[in-house]
């Protein structure tokens, strides 16, 4: 199967016009068709009723709850619930509400103030801070205006890749909960190559990235191979592998002869060589890391794979209906193996990019929660490359902004986890959103039945 392996990984040749520039089928707004139940991949307007005016289409999309509308409403609903949580855990708000019947206005305005302060701090930390514009007019740094956005991009980078990993597996009908273990596999290989090998400038970084991809791909391959050969369910195998790899990483980082920084008692690896570090590009301080561009290229590569290649067609067919795929002469097992291998590689790339572009050494702080977050990102992005990039940017913005929010308003960063969970919960339950916002009848959104029961 080596001939298949070398083909589809995020092709460097795609890098010139990656991800978001791609028009068409992967835009969540235009495809009302199914994410998994395949359709003609090239035709972006399949879902729109023919012979009606543009206005009619827009009204239909809103009242019937097209995926984009449901997603927007889900985000709104999640922020609303998150706001309630912020307000009613704030001591000053609770104090004001204690005298609600004597002074309801004060109670409501206290709640409003609390939420507004938190969310505007979130916005300023994630998108832009009006003060930086004012400062720029008075001779301050223009670059500072874009600093929050660069933070958002940096936070989003690993999420894009783990999100793509989970999404790619989804499209082949597999649920990859193991992005965390594959992230570790990739990070271990990339870190080791980063500090133990010395290579010329650009080549070193590329070798580490490829090594990271391979490190994750091996773990993904194992899952696919076990499923194809023995029927072991990928959910249970990936959950177990997460713990195996977590323990293995603890072992490596705690053993000086393995990955631990010598003369250290902390679980941390040596810093990787500067030649292996991913540079930041784009002028003065607020910059975009090369890692983000790698992630976008991977999204572009995955779009091409799924929408334009035979392999991608097999992925989607097997994902939609394995029996039909088998009848049509496709090897379901081989497709599973390849899909998991690529999914593992993407998550491994996430580990490599995090190490090479952000932390420069491997430890449990850099490990983070990218594996589980990848699932929520993939679900929110409806398992499509562009959707995943947008979802990762949203979650990256929440993560970047929440740090500022905690610093200025002392609202704990964990609120973002609540908001992210709620968004995905609402997105996964379109009937609920329709009921809450009184939208009309249900139409398939493609989120249904991406994962099957244990026997499937």
């Amino acid at each position: 199967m080596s001939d298949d392996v070398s083909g589809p990984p995020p092709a460097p040749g795609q890098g010139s016009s990656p991800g978001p520039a791609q028009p068409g089928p992967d835009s969540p707004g235009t495809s009302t068709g199914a994410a998994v139940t395949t359709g003609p991949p090239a035709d972006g307007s399949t879902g729109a009723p023919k012979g009606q005016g543009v206005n009619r289409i827009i009204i239909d999309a809103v009242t019937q709850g097209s995926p984009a509308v449901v997603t927007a409403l889900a985000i709104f609903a999640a922020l609303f619930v998150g706001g309630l949580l912020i307000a009613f855990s704030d001591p000053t708000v609770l104090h004001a509400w204690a005298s609600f019947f004597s002074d309801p206005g004060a109670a409501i305005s206290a709640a409003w103030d609390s939420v507004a302060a938190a969310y505007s701090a979130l916005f300023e930390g994630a998108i832009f801070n009006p003060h930086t514009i004012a400062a720029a007019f008075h001779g301050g740094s223009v670059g500072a205006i874009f600093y929050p956005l660069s933070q958002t991009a940096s936070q989003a980078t690993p999420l894009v890749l783990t999100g793509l990993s989970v999404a790619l597996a989804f499209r082949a009908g597999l649920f990859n909960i193991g992005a965390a273990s594959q992230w570790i596999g990739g990070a271990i290989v990339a870190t080791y190559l980063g500090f133990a090998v010395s290579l010329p400038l650009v080549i070193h970084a590329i070798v580490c990235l490829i090594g990271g991809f391979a490190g994750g791909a091996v773990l993904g391959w194992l899952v696919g191979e076990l499923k194809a050969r023995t029927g072991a369910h990928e959910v249970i195998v990936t959950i177990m592998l997460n713990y195996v790899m977590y323990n293995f990483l603890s072992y490596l980082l705690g053993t000086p002869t393995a990955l631990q920084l010598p003369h250290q008692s902390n679980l941390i690896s040596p810093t990787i060589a500067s030649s292996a570090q991913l540079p930041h590009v784009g002028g003065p301080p607020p910059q975009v890391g090369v890692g983000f561009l790698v992630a976008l290229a991977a999204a572009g590569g995955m779009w091409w794979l799924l929408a334009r290649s035979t392999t991608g067609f097999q992925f989607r067919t097997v994902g939609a209906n394995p029996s039909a795929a088998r009848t049509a002469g496709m090897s379901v097992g081989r497709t599973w193996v390849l899909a998991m291998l690529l999914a593992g590689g993407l998550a491994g790339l996430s580990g490599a990019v995090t190490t090479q572009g952000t932390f420069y050494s491997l430890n449990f702080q850099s490990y983070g929660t990218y594996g589980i977050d990848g699932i929520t990102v993939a679900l929110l992005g409806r398992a499509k490359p562009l959707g995943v990039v947008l979802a990762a940017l949203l979650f990256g913005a929440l993560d970047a902004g929440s740090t500022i929010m905690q610093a200025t308003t002392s609202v704990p960063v964990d609120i973002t986890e609540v908001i992210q969970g709620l968004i995905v919960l609402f997105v996964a339950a379109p009937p609920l959103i329709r009921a809450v916002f009184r939208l009309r009848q249900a139409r398939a959104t493609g989120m249904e039945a991406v994962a099957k029961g244990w026997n499937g």
Partner: protein
Amino acid sequence: MTALATVTSARSAVTVHRRLIAATVFVVFGLIDILVFGLFAHKGDATFALALPTSPVHVPSIHAPAAPVSYILGAASILIGVARATIDEPAWAKRLSIGAVLLFFVISLLCWADTGAWANDIPVNVVSLLQNTLTASIPLILGALAGCMGERSGVINIAIEGQLLLGAFTAAVVASAVGVLWLGLIGGSLAGGLVGLVLALFAIRWLVDQIILGVVLNVLISGLTGYLYDRLLVPKANTYNNASTFSAIKIPGLGSIPILGPIFFDSTIFLYITYAAIIAVQVGLFRTRWGLRVRAVGEHPTAADTVGIKVNGIRYGNLIMGGMLAGIGGAYLTIGSVGTFSKDMSSGLGYIALAAMIFGRWSPLGATAAALLFGFTEALQSFMGSITVPISPFLLGTLPYVATIIAVAGLVGKVRAPAADGKPYVRA
């Protein structure tokens, strides 16, 4: 005719294949017993103490010569492996052989560990090792039983992790704020049941994919408890996060039996609740009218509906009751053991409980056995840490997970979930 022959030979090929895998694994374990633990054992006897140091009753310890014991047990494992490969054994013999090989491996490991210079003649205290096994298994068993209840009725419950975590949080907060431990236990249980209710609503009413739903609920509860911990519990730790813990109750008579008494009958209320829950779920599922209905709903909901069983009613009930069990398991983590809540303190136990349920083939007793295996590994890990054995505790910690992967990949035969597991029932 030829087609039939091909099918039959393919099936027996699979059986032979699986038999060889199992046999190879057994032989490898036997070789490790001999070549690693036997050859590298230091001279002398390993001591296995059979009473706690504080025990008033004197029970003689067992002294085992380390190297010979490892050789014998390793040889026995290899023989079991050879037998597995050559004889078509009945199912009970297959299970027994897995258990025997694992037991021999553990004994050899302990012999090797206890004779090492690092052990300083500290005996292996079997009683305390098994006591720790049982307490470490409490949340796993209750979580796995919650999984069984849900999945036997046809709803996949990945939110066990969230049920444990919310149960732990609620139990700590209620017990601290009210000051009554029993109310903490009830609160934790209700919190788990609430998660079960939310799971049921989204899975049954709004038809959300159940695996996704479970994962998302876990994220949500991790965020919610983490947020409330930072926002409320940390500033007012004395009021909200300062519970006492249940103390051990020694059962009169049974608790005084040497060896077995301190292991099984001298523990907190949580262990006794766990015993009761195991029996109730096992007997309930397989010996009562209710259990028959549950299993019918999980295997063939349409048929069950036809004879007048309320499919979704059973599912709601099972998810809520299962959630309440898992909530008690969560409450154990705080008011049964440390008293205070900390962020993400369930640390993946819910996922391990899920694995135990699958490992135990969706049966309460099987799930309990698997959970005990995981609990034992944890107890073993902490014992090895206490005598500073030169094996990384982290590598030792991977063993139960590797074992689960091997198990689901076919060592224990094809595991089959209830037929309608994960599929929402919509009346046609």
